[in-house]
């Protein structure tokens, strides 16, 4: 500031007073509205807001959303009721109860020995860390990109197995039915089963009619 008195007269002397008075006239004129320039120009810019309920921005492909219990191509469940997901869960959100598959009584839900009879995830405990997905030995448990889970009571946010199971794809048979004949558990994981066989379809037809007639 000390050498400014020397510099300023030189500057004004070189450029001249008329220009200075003109710019000050314009700046005086627009000074009260100058700040609105930003606002005004913003009116012509693209809106950055995501119009959420109408147009949802897609999540990342591997977003950790609601869980899903997958099925084999013939409709048998992949979950073997091993409870490793429940053990891995840091928030104790998962409850699993296994049971034995039983071919004699027609209670076969998964290939192999055991299946998850009870499967519950408490979404008011779950922190979507996906440690359960890492723990799952059969890739039965994966995550979807669905995130709209808000509800008005706590009980409804405990999801049970029927809510978590993947929907039946075309060609799949709903769960209690025998394995593909001549195949063992290992073959399911090696991708040798590509869909239900006629024998399985026949079995399901017979037993569903049994249930209907029993009811």
């Amino acid at each position, binding site marked *: 500031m000390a050498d400014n008195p020397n510099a300023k007269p030189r500057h004004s002397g070189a450029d001249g007073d008329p220009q200075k008075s003109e710019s000050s006239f314009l700046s005086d004129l627009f000074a009260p509205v100058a700040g609105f320039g930003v606002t005004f120009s913003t009116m012509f810019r693209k809106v*950055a*807001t*995501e119009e*959420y*309920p109408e147009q*949802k*921005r897609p999540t990342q492909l591997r977003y950790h959303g609601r869980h899903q219990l997958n099925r084999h191509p013939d409709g048998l469940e992949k979950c073997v009721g091993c409870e490793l997901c429940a053990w891995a869960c*840091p*928030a*104790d959100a998962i*409850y699993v109860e296994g049971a034995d598959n039983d071919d004699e009584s027609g209670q076969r839900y998964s290939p192999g020995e055991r299946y998850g009879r*009870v499967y*519950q995830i*408490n*979404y*008011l*405990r*779950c*922190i*979507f*860390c996906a440690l359960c997905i890492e723990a799952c030995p059969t890739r039965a448990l994966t995550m979807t990109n669905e*995130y*709209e*889970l*808000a*509800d*008005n*009571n*706590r*009980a409804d*946010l*405990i999801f*049970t197995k029927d809510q978590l199971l993947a929907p039946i794809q075309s060609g799949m048979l709903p769960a209690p039915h025998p394995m593909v004949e001549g195949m063992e558990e290992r073959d399911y994981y090696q991708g040798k089963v590509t869909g239900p066989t006629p024998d399985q379809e026949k079995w399901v037809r017979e037993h569903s009619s049994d249930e209907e007639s029993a009811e």
Partner: protein
Amino acid sequence: MGIEEKLPAGFLLSTVENVAGYMRKYSVWPATFGLACCAIEMMAVGTPDYDIARFGMERFSATPRQADLMIVAGRVSQKMAPVVRQVYDQMPEPKWVISMGVCASSGGMFNNYAIVQGVDHIIPVDIYLPGCPPRPQMLLNAILELHDQIQNTKLGVNRQEAARAAEAAALKATPTHAMKGLLA
């Protein structure tokens, strides 16, 4: 609450209910109330990217006396519990509560002596929102759910009837300690 509570039932009241619900749901002001990491996502909802003002929440009220909605964002410690209750008590009727995130809803992964296992132990909660933390869209979704609730709020005689019906249903329901089975 006000004069709308004194109205007789019938056509007039149902119309007033609709109008009042419509007015109320688009003029909800949330209280500025963040407790932990969920508050960061709650602040994100206020940014132009998500723009909570689209839902009538023009600003986060800095005083509970001007707020209608309490978004409990974050874990509630035992020490914070009386404060949460006091802030809730200071809000004028009608008021609503969103329990944002798993910690506020049930204690989440903090199942220990320091954290209140669900803010509904202290204040009545209208919407539970899972997630750790919930993404901004999830909070907007919870707000839309709350709008539905507000729109369908009963007034006056209908409100009393609804409260009586809810009480009767609650008395008839099996108490949690007597529940046998998977959800016990």
